[in-house]
């Protein structure tokens, strides 16, 4: 293959694939396993916080379970305990596959994984003990984050090393996304920790930097990894090439170009230079371009071949995730129009968007990728397809409840907050029923997280090895759709 951006993931033989997969298996399973553990942990704290918001007497008056610490633990552990290790696991596996080389320096990755988890443990305990920095997605105190940074450095070095070793051939689009993400994360995390946590700069400069980080963490780290998985797994499990390499290219470059600038839109009218908010608004609206380019590309790839979405767990989760991402970017664009934002800025809509992006897109896509990858690492299939289906429905109804509840409630709360004749008290009371609804969603998400963790334990400990692929529905007879292994 001579072109640089190929439309087919790879042309490895089954034996080569198996060799590469078994070389990554230890490290990838460590990252996936620990991410499942922290997912349950974070979801539990998310539930506690959601209950406290509507029923403030719940576990009230206990210092380490006070609402502020609980929600910061939930979001930070979700980001660094679940999302980041899941992303690293996916990136490591994809890198080996895309570069067509078995994993070397296995020990280095495993040690990095262990160190990382120690860092999360230290960080989570210190937030609960009252050492939070209170920066969004940067709440871990100054003594916990260097641990994460060292661990990440080992991983990034490995990934770049492997890219260097790769067998020649066209670079598949997933490789671009992994490459960008692996470079973005240390840049974001290092800068933000150095300037805000380790040795904080003067406070007036902080808000802009904090927003650059939190929007970059999603748009430049989690999104590219999730998309890399989608670009790899969709063609692999349908046997169809990616529809258009031009759309892939457009999506890739516009995502990076605009995604890095969106932060300012979250502080319109606030204490940062006006041009920063204007740039943020423009970039957030321009995010419609990657949303449409990527969404359309996936749609054209699957057009007429959507049937496997019914039975393939990987496809079902990933397609749902992509749908959420497109919706997320469109809502972010609408929400950043200054007239709309004046009303919605401090409302629950912010939380709805957080869940839609971090859970609806990233977690769902990561689940799909894990459902695809893990059987290839263990050499046997998921124990029970019914449980996968249950996981899917619990997760979808869970974040469906949260997102719909908080958007509706947020609209009402936001308009109450912005109208001069309405008292503050009313904004609390209007939001209440919607927060209860969202709380039910959080409970469902906790159930789905437990379900997912049990499945992962199941496939790792399975004695009676299941060789038949776990399909969530009957495959149609004489279906044309191939099933990838």
């Amino acid at each position, binding site marked *: 293959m001579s072109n640089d951006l190929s439309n087919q993931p790879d042309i490895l033989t089954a034996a080569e694939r198996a060799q590469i997969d078994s070389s990554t298996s230890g490290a990838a399973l460590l990252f996936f396993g620990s991410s499942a553990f922290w997912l349950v942990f974070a979801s539990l704290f998310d539930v506690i916080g959601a209950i406290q918001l509507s029923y403030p007497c719940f576990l009230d008056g206990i210092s380490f379970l006070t609402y502020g610490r609980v929600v910061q633990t939930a979001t930070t552990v979700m980001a660094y305990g679940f999302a980041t290790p899941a992303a690293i696991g996916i990136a490591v596996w994809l890198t080996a596959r895309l570069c067509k080389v078995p994993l070397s320096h296995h020990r280095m990755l495993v040690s990095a994984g262990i160190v990382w988890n120690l860092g999360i443990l230290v960080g989570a305990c210190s937030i609960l003990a009252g050492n939070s920095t209170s920066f969004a997605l940067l709440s871990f105190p100054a003594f916990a984050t260097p641990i994460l940074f060292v661990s990440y450095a080992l991983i990034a070095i490995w990934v770049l090393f492997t890219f260097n070793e790769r067998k020649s051939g066209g670079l598949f689009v997933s490789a671009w996304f992994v490459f960008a993400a692996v470079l973005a994360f240390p840049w974001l995390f290092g800068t933000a920790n150095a300037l805000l946590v380790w040795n904080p700069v*003067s406070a007036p400069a902080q808000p802009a930097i904090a927003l650059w980080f939190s929007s970059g963490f999603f748009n430049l780290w989690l999104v590219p990894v999730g998309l890399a998985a989608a670009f790899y797994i969709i063609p692999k499990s349908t046997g169809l090439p990616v529809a258009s390499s031009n759309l892939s290219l457009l999506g890739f470059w516009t995502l990076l170009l605009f995604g890095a600038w969106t932060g300012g839109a979250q502080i319109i009218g606030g204490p940062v230079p006006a041009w920063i908010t204007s740039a943020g608004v423009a970039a957030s609206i321009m995010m419609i371009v990657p949303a449409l380019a990527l969404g359309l590309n996936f749609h054209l790839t699957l057009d007429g071949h959507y049937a496997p979405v019914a039975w393939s767990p990987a496809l079902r989760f990933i397609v749902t995730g992509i749908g959420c991402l497109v919706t997320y970017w469109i809502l972010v664009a609408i929400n950043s129009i200054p007239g709309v934002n004046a009303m919605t800025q401090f409302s629950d809509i912010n939380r709805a968007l957080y869940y839609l992006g971090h859970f609806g897109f990233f977690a769902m896509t990561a689940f799909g990728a894990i459902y695809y990858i893990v059987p290839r690492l263990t050499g046997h299939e998921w124990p029970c397809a019914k449980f996968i289906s249950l996981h899917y429905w619990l997760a979808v109804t869970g974040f469906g409840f949260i997102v719909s509840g908080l958007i509706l409630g947020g609209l009402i709360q936001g308009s109450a907050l912005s109208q001069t004749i309405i008292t503050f008290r009313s904004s609390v009371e209007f939001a209440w029923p919607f927060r209860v609804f969202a709380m039910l969603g959080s409970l469902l998400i906790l159930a789905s997280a437990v379900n997912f963790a049990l499945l992962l334990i199941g496939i790792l400990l399975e004695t009676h090895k299941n060789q038949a692929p776990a399909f969530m529905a009957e495959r149609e007879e004489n279906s044309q759709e191939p099933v990838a292994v």
Partner: protein
Amino acid sequence: MNKLPNIFVGIFVIFGSAWLGLVNYPLKNLGNLQPVPDEATGGVLPPTVSGLAVAGHKVYAANGCVECHSQQVRFAPLTTDIDKELGKRQTVARDYLREKTAFPGILRVGQDLSNYGARAGEDINAIHRHLYEPRSVNPWSNMPSYCFLYNVVKIQGQPSNEAVTGLTGPCAPKPGYEVVPTEKAKALVAYLLSLNQSYPLPESPVATAK
């Protein structure tokens, strides 16, 4: 063909430009902001805050108050913040000079606190009572109780003159006991009272004629 270096350069340029704009620019411009002299008093604006308030800022961070309270008044007429009397003028970057960390906040589950010190009045006991048990002041409140910042102690001889008075209902101390604020609670209240942007700044004058 190997185009990885080209992708690398592209990524580097794109990330670098956003970094220059959103990290380096604020660092160089906002990071060097200084207080302005206050002609009326000979002091500076924003006024310097007490050591106790600085300690209270840490308590505010440690307990995640920022998850529910913002500290920014947005400009009129785009928003109604000033009409809603959250403050007399827009909050600007220089206002954060008093703090070690800026907490602009992203949610208003509770009120904006940028000017809490201006509206709180003199009654420190009332603020302690609210922090100790918000629902004893506003039954509809969903603010958590910060009673762990207080000690419930047996009254020995004379009641302490720092004790929180007027606590009623289930949170009231048993007869013979009193609720005494810890250093942290006192610092937090000092911090809350220091939140006051009624002074004018050149880039954000106080609007007259309302």
